């Protein structure tokens, strides 16, 4: 009984300590990022979980060269990133989608920095017996018109659509390219590439879509209209399902933040890290896309 008392006291003390330190560090970081980022060299980047690993790695390298600059990278989702940077709570908001396409965000106040391109491919369970599909068929599957694989040349098996969370950048990109305004069928929603990969690989008849970096032997990527999902096809826009990874700042980026964003765009990051992490370098793109989805030749 006595022992228990000591334990519970210790626990309480620990909890109180955690609360106190938690408060302390929180307020410190918010102070640092809103006002002092250019002086003290403290940068907070929040948002897209798809972009997070790249920014974290790049931040690590950047901090090695600039010991005085301290970069914190957090996830939270594209919506969080955009709204936090708009409120001035963080220096950089990471997003998978253009600020223009997110309701509630005033994009005129934000400055876009495109740091990478990510391609996405429809993936199916190996069982489906399909490896090429037309864009129209793909649309029919995701709007619920086609419900059996035999209708698109596969075997007689029910199609299980696995979608991404509504409002997520990956889903927005996919629906812009494939559904052209039509409404997706109500179906399962998962909120990460990893879970989608696991579910598609283990559920017969499942279809979903994944970023290129998550394609592996466990799932079958589909070609669309005989075009294969490869980096080269994204670079010349033969493969239509791709999007930019954005890092937004409120107004023009200043000192430390500007330096870091410049570093993100440098050859150091673009030619090695970006490729290593499964993204496509922004320098290799032969086309460019604007917020409305119009594609033009790159300058």
């Amino acid at each position, binding site marked *: 009984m006595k022992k228990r008392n000591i334990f519970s006291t210790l626990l309480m003390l620990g909890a109180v300590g955690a609360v106190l330190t938690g408060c302390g560090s929180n307020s410190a970081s918010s102070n640092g990022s809103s006002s002092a980022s250019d002086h003290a060299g403290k940068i907070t980047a929040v948002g897209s979980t798809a972009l997070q690993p790249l920014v974290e790695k790049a931040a690590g390298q950047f901090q090695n060269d600039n010991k005085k600059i301290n970069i914190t990278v957090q996830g939270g*989702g594209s*919506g*969080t990133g955009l*709204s936090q940077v708009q409120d001035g709570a963080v220096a950089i908001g990471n997003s998978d989608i253009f600020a223009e396409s*997110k309701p*509630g965000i005033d994009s005129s106040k934000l400055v876009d920095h495109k740091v990478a391109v990510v391609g996405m491919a429809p993936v199916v369970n190996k069982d489906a017996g399909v490896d090429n599909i037309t864009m129209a068929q793909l649309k029919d599957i995701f709007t619920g018109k086609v419900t059996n694989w035999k209708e698109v040349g596969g075997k007689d098996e029910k199609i299980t659509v696995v979608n991404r969370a*509504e409002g997520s950048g990956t889903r927005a990109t996919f629906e812009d390219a494939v559904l052209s305004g039509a409404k997706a069928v109500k179906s*399962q*929603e998962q909120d990460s590439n990893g879970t989608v990969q*696991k579910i598609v690989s283990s559920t017969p008849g499942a279809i979903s879509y994944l970023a290129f970096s998550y394609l592996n032997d466990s799932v079958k990527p589909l070609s669309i209209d005989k075009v294969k999902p490869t980096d080269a096809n994204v670079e010349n826009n033969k493969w239509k399902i791709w999007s930019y990874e954005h890092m937004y700042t409120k107004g023009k980026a200043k000192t430390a933040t500007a330096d870091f964003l410049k570093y993100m765009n440098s050859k150091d990051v673009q030619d090695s890290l970006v490729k290593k992490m499964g993204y496509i370098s922004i320098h290799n793109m032969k086309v460019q896309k604007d917020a409305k989805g119009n594609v033009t030749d790159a300058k």
Partner: protein
Amino acid sequence: MKEIQNKLLTKSKATREDHFGRAICYLCIGLIIALVVCILYFITSRGIATFTQNHVNIWGFLAGTNWNPGSVDAHGNPEVGALPMIVTSFSVTVLAAAVATPFALAMAIFMSEIAGKKGTKFLQPVIELLVGIPSVVYGFIGLSVIVPLIRKIFGGTGFGILAGTIVLFVMVLPTITSLSVDSLRAVPLSYRQASAALGANRWQTIYKVILRTAAPGILTAVIFGMARAFGEALAVQMVIGNAVLMPKSLVSPASTLTSKLTTDVGNTVMGTLPNNVLWSLALILLFMSLFFNLLVRFIGKKGSIKK
């Protein structure tokens, strides 16, 4: 004389310590109360914004079955019917509690009445271990073991209420068990002695005397378990499928209030309708936990053991 007067009028060390301790207590309590009030205010103000700022009909929200906050229906109203999630949340909660209660009760009876000290010493850590396992681990096991198993047996995708129920069953089991043990142990020894004196054997005593006396406590335990099941997010989200559809069967993908919150909150922008309706879902959760709390108090008052 002066010395004695001084001694009596100045605070002794013990008194000062007493005041100091009291001040710390009040400070901590004040902080906690402020925190609770802040949370309540924040969730309520955000949750109500759906109805005051975005002018969503509250019945359309509670009874509608179409969830698509990003778009509007034929009448221009946003599609924010939360009923499928409310129904699913209740189904998994009630089912999990219904399945877990007999097991928990059996374990509680074993621990408090049948097993000696040795059995209790063995079972106690087992149950405490179940509490200590993080919910993400339960979810992961559910995703890798239970979902494929259900798919094999029942067909479909394997995601759904059944998978959620099984995962939650394991998660609420320790809560219900340990609270039931406490209430069984609280039954006065004199009851058992009286029962034995009347010639009842052990089973008769447990069934006719102890269980009945402890019934309010056991009910409280079940409700606490249900509250835990209702609020569990991560593990359920991993196995329920997250499709905002009215559940047609136990093995069709569905979505609970909590799983919707965890999936969507990062993708919405503060202050917009899709974000506000999520706060409204949180408000429903808050009301439910309040309801569970009141229920527990009510039962506790009605059925406390009189010695």
